[in-house]
């Protein structure tokens, strides 16, 4: 793995038609760090997440995961990425168990059933494992989406607004998971509109505005009010 950072974005730029969404973004998330990427709607957070995950290609610049360029690497690099996106990326007509077992097979996990069982316990969905996902509440679906993202224990975890629509209990489960996962040898990049949670959950805060990095600082030095002030300035 690379020494400078597990996630490295170098001069990443992306346009959709005439709109410039990302403009030469440089970003480094070291191993063991949780970085919160903040910004208003349309700031380019989700586009940057999709580019880092490899789902979207940048027009310019490159993304390195563990020192390997995602553009040049084959499909094997996707083993190192876990993504929680706006959509849960789950089959709503399958049960929670069937969903995770399917993805465990796609990721070629050894003893998939044991791992699925452990993940379902971790996201507190074991009692509802045989229910179809469309019968789950928003919070339960989001917890299962997080379970899918961590199923293969990826060193790079991308959480795009994972707390949206969560009830307090689910948010607490998520906070516990982020603390547990962030303490190990992985890099977590998360976006959220909840500044209090960002300051609480993350080790560093980066503010994205109009497709550029506007501010960046360790979370320990910041309060939600300070970040709110940054956003108001922009």
């Amino acid at each position, binding site marked *: 793995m690379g020494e400078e950072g597990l996630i490295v974005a170098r001069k990443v730029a992306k346009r959709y038609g005439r709109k410039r969404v990302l403009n030469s973004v440089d970003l480094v998330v070291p191993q063991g760090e949780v970085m919160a990427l903040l910004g208003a709607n349309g700031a380019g957070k989700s586009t940057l997440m999709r580019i880092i995950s490899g789902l979207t290609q940048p027009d310019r610049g490159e993304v390195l995961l563990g020192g390997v360029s995602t553009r040049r690497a084959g499909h094997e690099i996707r083993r190192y990425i876990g993504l929680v996106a706006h959509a849960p990326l789950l*089959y709503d007509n399958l049960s929670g168990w069937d969903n995770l077992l399917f993805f465990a097979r796609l990721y070629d996990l050894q003893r998939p059933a044991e791992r699925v069982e452990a993940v379902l316990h971790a996201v507190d969905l074991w009692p509802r494992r045989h229910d179809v996902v469309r019968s789950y509440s928003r919070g339960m679906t989001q917890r299962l989406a997080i379970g899918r993202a961590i199923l293969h224990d990826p060193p790079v975890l991308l959480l795009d607004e994972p707390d949206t629509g969560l009830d307090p209990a689910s948010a607490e489960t998520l906070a516990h998971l982020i603390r547990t996962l962030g303490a190990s040898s992985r890099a977590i990049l998360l976006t959220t509109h909840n500044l209090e949670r960002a300051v609480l959950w993350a080790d560093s805060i980066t503010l994205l505005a109009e497709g550029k990095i506007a501010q960046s600082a360790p979370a320990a030095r910041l309060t939600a009010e300070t970040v709110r002030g940054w956003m108001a300035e922009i």
Partner: protein
Amino acid sequence: MAEQRAEQRAEQRAAEGLAAHPATMRAGGGGSAYFAKVGAIFAKDMRAEVRGREVFSTMTSFSVLAVLIFGLAFDLRVPRSEMIAPGVLWVVVLFAGVLGLNRSFGAEVDRGTLSALLLAPVDRSAIYFGKVLANLFFTLATTLVILAVMFFIFDVNLFHPYNLLAVLLGGIGYVGVGTLFAALTANNRARESMLPILLLPVMVPVFVAGVGLTAAIVDGKNFAELSQWFNLLAVFDAIFVVVAFLLFDLIWEDA
């Protein structure tokens, strides 16, 4: 007792946490890993169909209605149903197939699960072949239903082994190309109309060969006389499945 043991085991797993059951991915794995992933995608589509009944029931309902309508339409003017049965069979198979193919990737886009498939460390061609297998299963199963309904409506037995071989070969070519085009149009808002407009012209050789074969079988011709049509279908299948396999990766460059 068994329930108690299961509960105890579940409690133990919960207490152990994630660290006790680390995710270990097999490295490489070659052909067996590749085919396991193709099988996983096929099995997932089958399971989703059993739970959701979205594809097969739509295809068979449409097919039964279409055969009934053709039966009513031609009943008054055609002296022998053998004259129109080959055409009816292949027209209904092609149109019913479009319904299934549209859902193949359309459902993944609608549910937002396409990104999850593309995020997995899977060669894109494994996704293609998993989908081809599922679509082929639905198309062939629907064709069997069509043949059964045609037996009652047109009083023609098309369950001849050569005709079943023709349906299999035609189905492989149709689904091979159709799955590629379904992936191409999946993100298009007008995919329901785009897919048949793109697909049906390419399917002309399959349609002509299929109708020719079924008509010749109904007329009682021997295998030697049928071989040119079988060859045409086999060559079409080989060319287009290879082309689709090679092109499939490019579709998802920027998913």
